[in-house]
């Protein structure tokens, strides 16, 4: 059903391992997520980790509030979601400047680069703008080679400088979803 259109089909990507290694190095402990195919390998790594706790959410805004509580209790976290989920977070993002906790989110993009499903396009087109209007700095990774450096920069500014940061993992990186009968 939900096969992927590019080389990611036949070779397992290693960039999710790069992300996992960076999160581990920054002592990330709580990993709330709403699943996305582009995050599936990273979620597997998190659920298999002894130091990180993967926390499935019913909606992405729960993750913003969870990270506020985690920080109050002394732990760092990262929110994994798809671009559609950014829209679900908007009001809860107001906690970030008010409570001033480290906020890092990794967003797999839909609605761009070879998208098949028109329903993904409106939110995918406004994802970056919504984040920026909400006070979250946006970085982007468009190919596997740049993932480690982008993640390193994002984690450093989020956790060391309390700069709310989103990394958009572009559809070009994760591969456009195709639908077959």
């Amino acid at each position, binding site marked *: 059903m939900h096969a992927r259109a590019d080389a990611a089909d036949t070779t397992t990507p290693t960039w999710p391992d790069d992300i996992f290694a960076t999160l581990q190095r920054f002592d990330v*402990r*709580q990993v709330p997520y709403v699943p996305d195919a582009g995050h599936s390998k990273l979620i597997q790594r998190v659920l298999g980790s002894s130091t990180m*706790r993967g*926390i*499935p*959410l*019913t*909606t992405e*805004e*729960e*993750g*913003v*509030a*969870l*990270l*506020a*509580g*985690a*920080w*109050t*209790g*002394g*732990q760092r*976290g990262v929110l994994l979601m798809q671009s559609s989920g950014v829209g679900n977070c908007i*009001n*809860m993002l*107001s*906690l970030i400047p*008010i*409570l*001033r*906790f480290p906020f890092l989110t990794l967003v797999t993009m839909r609605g761009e680069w070879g998208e098949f499903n028109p329903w993904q396009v409106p939110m995918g087109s406004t994802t970056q703008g919504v984040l920026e209007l909400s006070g979250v700095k946006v970085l982007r990774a468009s190919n596997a080679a740049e993932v480690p450096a982008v993640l390193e920069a994002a984690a450093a500014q989020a956790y*060391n400088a*309390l700069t709310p940061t989103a990394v958009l993992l572009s559809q070009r990186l994760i591969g456009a979803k195709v639908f077959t009968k």
Partner: protein
Amino acid sequence: MSKANLLDRRQVVSALLADRKDVVAIGGLGASTNDITAAGDHARNFYLWGGMGGAAMIGLGLALAQPKLPVLVITGDGEMLMGMGSLATIGLQKPSNLSIVVLDNEAYGETGGQTSHTSAAADLVGVARACGIADSRAISTMAEVEAFAKTIHDLSGGPRFANVKIDSANVERILPSRDGTYIVNRIRGDLGFQPI
């Protein structure tokens, strides 16, 4: 709007926090945050003035980070309804040190007293139980409140959920700090964390 035999919200919250020891208490947006203030300002009080629907999830994040501390979320029916999915998330994680109390006046008291879904149809105890929170109780007496207050300190019995039917009468506004960064850093400091 007051009905006979419903509990007084301030008495309920006072009883919950009377012997609080090391409890971290989170007050949901609205009157609940004022109620925990009225019971006495405390370095481990987390006052919410926004982020409606987020109180239970803040509680979950704190409870997972600090499994040796009792974490108590006190919020209203409207705030809980907005974050109802978080009961499913909590039911899945099962943090044994987390307790959630809903002060249910069946109304949006801060915005003019419009009736909420719990006034006629929604049963939050049923929702919590169906989400996997086995210890979910409907409370209607002070004796039950006092019994629940004791269980909060049992770090192995949670998560637990209590819905307390309260009088919808408006009470005096006792306002906590509105400075979120101060509120969070005060709790962190009390837990022994240094500023970044």
